[in-house]
């Protein structure tokens, strides 16, 4: 495994008013790997992603990029580092076309004027590179695309830039079997090309099919981050739903749970015993 992770979170806290949604969350993301982030509904996965991308500011904790602490104050900061996010609630503008969406906020210009031909060419090349053949015209409004096509546009938007980390929040949730397979293949290829990929999914089959590591969130706490090859399906489900599985995961209420620690370099147990 590479020496320094590309992206590392340490002790991230986030509250919405009185509700603490993230508690002391750690996460490491390596280049060339797919890191799956799993957890039940409301565990805080999307919130964590939005903290990484600067949509929300975290209340505490550190973000290290390439080993250096960085401050991500907004979407532009994240983009400047090379962090791109495909959001669960797809962030596309229905009234704009595919090219306009892919370059939104980062339009190419010549002087004052938008450089449409260049943007259109770059968009076409990127989509061709992702083997997208189903869109009729790059100039059609995004509203006229199917769910899978929209998802592909969102992913293409993320890889169009010299991105180093691509975070996908449930990219296959709304897709059919064939399109899910396509998107997963795409996810794998991104990692094989050296990008660091974070994949959020509720589908364990998908997670086990493409990920190298699995990070498990339980009620806003990171219970474990393990190599995919070192855990079983059942263990992951248990960790997600109960916060612990055998010796893995959160410490027990009576403080006996530190148990067997995993041997991974990336191992992460939590803020155990917050209630001790």
């Amino acid at each position, binding site marked *: 495994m590479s020496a320094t992770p590309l992206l590392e979170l340490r002790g991230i806290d986030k509250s919405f008013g009185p509700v603490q949604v993230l508690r002391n969350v750690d996460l490491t993301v390596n280049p060339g790997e797919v890191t799956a982030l799993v957890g039940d509904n409301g565990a805080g996965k999307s919130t964590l992603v939005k903290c990484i991308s600067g949509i929300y500011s975290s209340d505490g904790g550190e973000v290290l990029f390439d080993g250096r602490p960085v401050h991500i104050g907004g979407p532009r900061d994240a983009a400047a580092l090379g962090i791109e996010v495909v959001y669960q609630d797809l962030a596309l503008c229905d009234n704009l076309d595919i090219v306009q969406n892919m370059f939104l*906020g980062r339009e190419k210009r010549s002087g004052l004027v938008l450089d449409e031909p260049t943007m259109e060419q770059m968009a076409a090349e990127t989509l061709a590179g992702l083997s997208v053949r189903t869109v009729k015209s790059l100039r059609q409004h995004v*509203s006229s695309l199917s769910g899978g096509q929209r998802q592909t546009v969102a992913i293409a938007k993320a890889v169009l830039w010299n991105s180093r980390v691509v975070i996908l929040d449930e990219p296959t949730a709304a897709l059919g079997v064939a399109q899910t397979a396509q998107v997963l293949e795409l996810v794998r290829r991104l990692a094989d090309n050296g990008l660091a990929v974070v994949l959020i999914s509720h589908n364990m089959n998908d997670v086990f099919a493409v990920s190298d590591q699995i990070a498990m969130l339980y009620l806003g706490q990171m219970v474990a981050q393990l190599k995919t090859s070192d855990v079983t399906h059942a263990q992951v489900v248990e960790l997600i739903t109960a916060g612990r599985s055998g010796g893995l995961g959160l410490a027990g209420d009576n403080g006996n749970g530190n148990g067997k620690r995993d041997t991974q370099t990336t191992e992460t147990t939590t803020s155990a015993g917050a209630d001790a």
Partner: protein
Amino acid sequence: MSAPTTAPVQPVEVPPPPAPTVGSHLRDYLARVGGGDMGALPAVLGLIVLCAVFAILRPNFMTEGNFANLFTQGAAVMLIAMGLVFVLLLGEIDLSAGFASGVCAAVLAQLVTLKGYPWYVAVAAALVTGVVIGLVIGFLVAKIGIPSFVVTLAAFLAFQGIVLLLIKGGTNVSVRDDVLVAISNRNMPPWLGSTLMLLGVAGYAAVQLLRHRNRTALGLITEPLAVVLIRIVSLTLIAGTAVSILNLERSRNQLVSLKGVPIVVPIIVILLIIWTFVLQRTAYGRHVYAVGGNREAARRAGINVDRIRISVFVICSFMAAIGGIVAASRASSVDANTGGSKVLLYAVGAAVIGGTSLFGGKGRIVDAVLGGAVIAVIDNGMGLLGRSSGFTFVVTGLVLLLAASVDALSRRRAAATGNR
């Protein structure tokens, strides 16, 4: 900005879609219209029908003199509507635009008539007043978070009062400055009108043809050359006919000559070109559409949403100031009603009739001009028919309702056919 990592994976050959032909272009257009994206079609059809009806009922509707009147009557509303398009694109509303134009006109009259400043100082002051008004409204909406409906409703009332205060109650401040009066009441010499028209058409043709050549050279999908040519020829015909008619003698009196394009016309055309350029060709314009289409997506794309929201109110009030100056020029005076009564509703109506959506995200500057023309024709035609202004209001209200229904229905249709 980083370079693109195009094709992080092995490219798969994508069969290029067939090049569009005139036929396929027409079919695409019809499909768009059928799918609820009507664009300017309702306004253009409405304009033709209304003109036909009035021409039959009142032959003097179709005189040169009345044709020129349409422009000067509709100018202020068109200009205010142009600014409103920006606000409507964000799904916001500015109810104060009418009285904002009144306030700016009152500032103008104060300075030029009562204080004796030269016209350009007064004009500059009126424009600055517009910008300040827009900044305040935009700040209250974007930073404080008060709905624009409420902020501008409050401003609507307050500005009405400010106009009264500025012109000291019920009096009427006349505007006699030659330059200011000329804006709405004088015409360009016929040769100048023709020359400007030819320059404008030639410029349009050059831009269109260059773009076509550029895209073809880059191997991008381009609309067929025939379509581009048809557009250029149509514009030339329409502009040429309009200017020729306006260049005819329209004075009933042998002693004074009255001919040429009214000076407000090039003002409207230039502002139409500038704002269309801003909306369609600059990143700022793209961001306005994005914020109107999906504010959260725009925010995540790193767009400063608050700044965009403030800016549209500034543009709107700025255009209201220009509308106010034009209105003051036309009446050669400013009174408590300048920018009041029907001005705001006509301006909102103009934008909506032209095809700008009240739901945000959809609209163009030319909508303001087309819709403004529809409103001007109704107002003028009803006047010629000798209908009371009560009747005119009712008809205009119905037309606005019709336009809003078209807007709402085309949205539903678009949602059903997945067009928008």
